[in-house]
């Protein structure tokens, strides 16, 4: 499948080569995305964003330059300027080229129903009702509707057209006594979106009835902790960004010199794969290399970093199809399912905490993994295998490598999670039970 923009991108590549580029790669991104923001059960604003961006990647004498322009700009003039500007640059001794050869991509799959959405407020109303009908007093959130087309043409061979659609609903419900719950429904297919169920789930998290009346002061200490998929999604987003070879080269990861070493229990496996069932679905990376499934952590052992062509050559491996023209990037992280359930995790916890969400994860050292993150929304104390009551104002102040090693249980059920900057890299995230987690509090 092609598009007019594919011919355009090929034309620009030829123009760049004629004007002196050694390599040229053009990406044309054409999108019409929409968003509904709501709070206090009402819609605050509805946004439509229409854009077409042309990315021009030029190399000459191992000097690289990238230029992005909007469609109103004169792309050919910008190509000429870019080629001229390489004269001012230094040779990039790290540069090892971009993907070469004719590539074969999987067939295009996208959701036509998403393209046809006219009035998006029905979805939002359904989500709000799902929360209000299940005990919430107030509801806020966002709905995104994505319609994107991408054409790529490279002087080195790759040429492709991709089209993707998606819907992403984030809903936060507020109950009594400062209780709140947050849930998302994230999918490339409209028929998989569950607005009412998402609202209901957010509302149910607020109190985990019938425990809403009991409030417990949980102090600082070491706890066994159960994490909801919202929290897990945030951790996975952090960990998967550390698997980029770029992070390794600049010391911003716990995974330096850990290849083929045990970094997690033997029932933990992570893969990167932007297949047709996920919100970040794509069929080729930014070099035009076909998307593939990369098991980067298998049965607890670190197997590979994520690479583009240039980092792969430096590490003496093949590209994993995760370009980033500047740096490799994860696209979608699968965490393999376990054999547990949330209820079983609670039953097997003597003295612990159940966190339903987190935010504001920050590191003091990404090499050692020392960090903290603040659980938000309702959180619960577990005593002798039961939810004993609600608690608040706790912070996880620990080490990301330790958390990974201390995973005890993984749930069978997993959910596509992506929201805001907290779970930026989307993932298929389970419930987790992690032992011996350090918790701190304000004084």
């Amino acid at each position, binding site marked *: 499948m092609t598009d007019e923009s594919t011919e355009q991108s090929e034309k620009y590549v030829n123009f760049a080569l004629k004007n002196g580029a050694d390599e040229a790669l053009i990406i044309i991104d054409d999108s019409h995305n929409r*968003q509904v923001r*709501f*709070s206090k059960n*009402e*819609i*605050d*604003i*509805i*946004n*439509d*964003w*229409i*854009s*077409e961006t042309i990315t021009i990647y030029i190399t000459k004498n191992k000097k*690289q*330059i*990238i*230029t*992005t322009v*909007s*469609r*109103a*700009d004169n792309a050919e003039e*910008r190509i000429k300027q870019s080629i001229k*500007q390489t004269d*001012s*640059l*230094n040779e*990039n001794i*790290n540069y090892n080229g971009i993907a070469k050869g004719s590539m074969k991509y999987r067939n295009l799959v996208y959701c036509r129903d998403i393209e046809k959405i006219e009035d998006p*407020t029905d979805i939002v109303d359904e989500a709000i009702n799902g929360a209000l009908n299940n005990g919430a007093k*107030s509801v*806020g959130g*966002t709905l995104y509707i994505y319609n994107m087309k991408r054409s790529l043409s490279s002087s080195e061979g790759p040429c492709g057209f991709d089209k993707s659609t998606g819907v992403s609903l984030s809903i936060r419900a*507020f109950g009594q006594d400062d209780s709140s719950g947050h849930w998302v429904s994230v999918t490339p297919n409209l028929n998989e979106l569950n607005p009412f169920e998402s609202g209901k789930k957010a509302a149910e998290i607020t109190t985990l009835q019938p425990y809403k009346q009991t409030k417990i002061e949980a102090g600082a200490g070491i706890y066994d902790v159960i994490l909801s998929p919202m929290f897990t999604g945030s951790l996975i987003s952090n960990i998967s960004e550390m698997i980029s070879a770029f992070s390794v*080269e*600049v*010391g*911003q990861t716990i995974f330096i010199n850990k290849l083929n070493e045990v970094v997690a229990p033997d029932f933990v496996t992570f893969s990167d794969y932007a297949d047709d069932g996920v919100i970040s679905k794509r069929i080729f990376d930014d070099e035009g290399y076909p998307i593939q499934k990369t098991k980067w952590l298998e049965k607890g052992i670190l197997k590979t970093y994520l690479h583009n062509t240039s980092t792969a050559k430096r590490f003496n491996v093949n590209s994993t199809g995760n370009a980033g023209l*500047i740096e490799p990037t994860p696209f979608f992280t699968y965490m393999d399912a376990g054999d547990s359930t949330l209820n079983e995790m609670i039953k097997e916890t003597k003295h612990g905490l159940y966190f339903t969400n987190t*935010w*504001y994860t*920050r*590191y*003091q*050292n*990404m*090499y050692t993994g*020392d*960090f903290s993150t*603040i659980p938000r929304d309702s959180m619960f104390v577990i005593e002798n295998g039961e939810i004993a009551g609600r608690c608040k*104002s706790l*912070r996880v*102040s620990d080490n990301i490598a330790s958390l990974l090693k201390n995973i005890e249980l993984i749930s069978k059920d997993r959910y596509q999670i992506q*929201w*805001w900057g907290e779970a930026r890299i989307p993932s298929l995230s389970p419930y987790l039970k992690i032992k011996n987690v350090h918790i*701190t*509090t*304000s*004084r």
Partner: protein
Amino acid sequence: MIDEDYLKNINEYAEGMGVSFASARGENRKTTNYLLKNGVIESVVNSFSSGFNVKVNVNGNIGFASTDLWSREEGVKISDIAIRNAKYAKRKNKINMDDEKAIRDDWSVNIKKKTLDMDKSDIIELLTDINKAIIDTKIKIPGIVIMFSIEDIYKVIVNSNGTNIKSKDSKITLFAYISIAENNQSSQFYKMYGFTGGMEAFDVWHADEDLKNECIIQKKILDNGVSIKPQKYTVVCGPEVSGIAAHESAGHPMEADRILGREISQAGGSFITAEMLGTQIGSEYATVIDDPTIENSYGYFKYDDEGVRGVKKFLYNKGKINDFLHNRESAAKMNKKSNGSSRAASYDLEDIVRMSSTYISPGDWEKDDIIKDIKNGVYMKSFTEWNIDDWRFNQKYVAREAYYIKNGEICEPLKRCVLEITTPNFWKSIDAASKELEWNSAMCGKGDPEQGVPVFTGGPTIRLQGVYLYD
């Protein structure tokens, strides 16, 4: 590309469609980003962005649409979409905007050393020199990332009040992330430098010297730092720490849109309610100001993105909750006037309530006098890891550079000690503030989609009595 008459026509078209308010905001933004990785230029990225948005209020409902195509047909299409979006919203509680007078102005940032004429090789040399200054410390540094950007923004704002404002802005940003490894220990830190103006920013920053010194300090802490004995101390916070506290636990909770719940689903709410105006939250030294009018500050602007003049605001005044940050929507809801705090990160994003340069007001103490009477205390000069909950009540700052204070003297360095404290306890504990005021730069995140806007954080050296620190 941007055309003032075109935007006026588009706005007039929207006004003619029965809206109670319409605005059009157009922008040309030219950015060049440089990435130096371990001393090698890894990428140079030019970005030429141009487009506009139309925002309308139809019967108390807000609709917004943006495009990057400047044609008459596209303008009509975008206006129609914005109006359609507003009509879809069907609110029961109608949204109003406060009344604002029309402003016609044309303002520019004062640039002493122009960026546009600079050859890229000159900039790469500047960055390479910074990298060399770090390497020349002879400290084992396995990772250095230096990012630099130059951003030129030409913006036009027109609205149905008759406002027509043109502006030329220029933001210069340097960011460094450095990893140190010595004697089987590691330390990492980052520093950000921001400036509104031209390349004279480098004369203000002295980034090469500053980063070199920071590396030397971090090595000393690795070599000689001791773990803190967990207990209550008299804690002296340097301007970097007082500035981040001003931003996180005074600026953010005083954003009226948070207080009203509009940011609740992602960026969060506030422990402060509209009824708490006048409530004592801190000591007499807890005066926190937000001021976009400070020239060359990273948060500088003359008018906000709703065309309202930016003004100095006392958020906390002598410990009392005093004045919220408002845009026109939040002001109307609270029967106030906008104080010019509405900002958008780019033409395709809605303007929302934001900070600019937020700082603790300097006090009347000499810095030496703040320290000289402390028998057993800690000087927390700067911070690394930090965070705060989404009600802006529980905050944590991990020291990047800290020292014991014993009998009025600054003594041995501390390994990363932690201040984890509630917002009222922080502000009530201040019993001294120095006369001097220092600034730091930050990119503040808020909104959905998340919008990063440049801000300054600032403050004097302050003293907190009886606060708990641990390692």
